[in-house]
């Protein structure tokens, strides 16, 4: 038994030395818990069951040039589901980067999750189906998302919002 414990200890020591914890390189992962949390967050949006518990209360959300509060962001899911059918937002490529070591200036130590995907939906008014190439990035602090930046073309969406508002009046 002692021999077994010794061998386990030796193996872990060698492996730990080969991959030092203080490695200054900035690493990327698409399998880590933050990447998975973002995938789960956005699946909630698609399912109209948006759970914002992973977002800090004072999270800043920017959709292109428009700044939103957390509550506005959370409310978008219901709003979109009232405007569109068949909303799709597949994971696409999601990765999380922890910036360390290099001269990252003020960004040193930051952790960001990046997502590139296509948003697709069918208008309940015009029955048009549209796909928008999208990039979302999420900044993490103390296990919470504190900033979301979303980039995409607003051309089709703005047209749909206008039609939707006209129909409401």
């Amino acid at each position, binding site marked *: 038994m002692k021999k*077994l414990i010794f*061998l*386990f200890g030796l*193996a*872990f020591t060698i*492996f730990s030395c080969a*991959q030092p914890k203080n490695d200054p*390189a*900035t*690493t*990327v*992962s*698409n*399998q*880590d818990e933050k990447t998975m949390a973002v995938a789960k967050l956005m699946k909630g949006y698609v399912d109209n069951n948006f759970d914002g518990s992973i977002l800090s209360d004072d999270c800043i959300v*920017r959709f*292109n*040039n428009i700044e939103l509060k957390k509550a506005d962001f959370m409310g978008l899911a219901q709003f979109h589901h009232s405007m569109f059918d068949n909303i799709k937002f597949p994971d696409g490529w999601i*990765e999380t*980067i922890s*910036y360390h070591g*290099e*001269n*990252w200036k003020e*960004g040193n130590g930051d952790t960001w999750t*990046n997502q*590139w995907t*296509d948003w697709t939906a069918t208008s309940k008014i015009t029955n048009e189906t549209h*796909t*928008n*190439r*999208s*990039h979302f*990035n999420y900044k993490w602090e103390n296990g919470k998302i504190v900033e979301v*930046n979303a*980039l*995409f*073309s*607003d*051309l089709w969406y*703005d047209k749909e919002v206008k039609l939707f508002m006209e129909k409401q009046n």
Partner: protein
Amino acid sequence: MKKLFFLLFISLSTYSFAQEITGKTRTTDKYSNAIRQINDEYFKNDFTTINQIFADDGSYTINGDNFTKNQIIEGFAMHHNLYTKIKMPQNFVDTTFYDENNNNQVWSHLWGLWEATSKKSGKSTSNPVNVSFKWVDGRVVSASWIFDPTELNEEIIASQK
């Protein structure tokens, strides 16, 4: 003894998967510097480096729509007919070198707040943008720009009146 080696193998494999490393990211590498140079030249209406580095038959998209290399360059040049003071004071470029599980791909990414002043209205405008560049053998073979083109389209229409 076989059981012992099996247990050691399992424990090391588990530890290895727990590292979850997909690649490493740099900012001071030659790829990131080339993207910065392309960007800096664009502000001066100069497309020397993009012409050299972008593959002639590459795959280029703006918000998911396909364009040729020449169309991309013509589009950037057209910005200078519409705007003055084109700049990106807030920008960040990095390059990720993915591991063999991801085919050792090399991708540079640019995030920036594009700023310019309309020649027609004199109005200053800003727009956030993300661009992804895929590198193969020292050339960009694929690039994807994502941004909201609403204001740019309005500026194009206004310039035609």
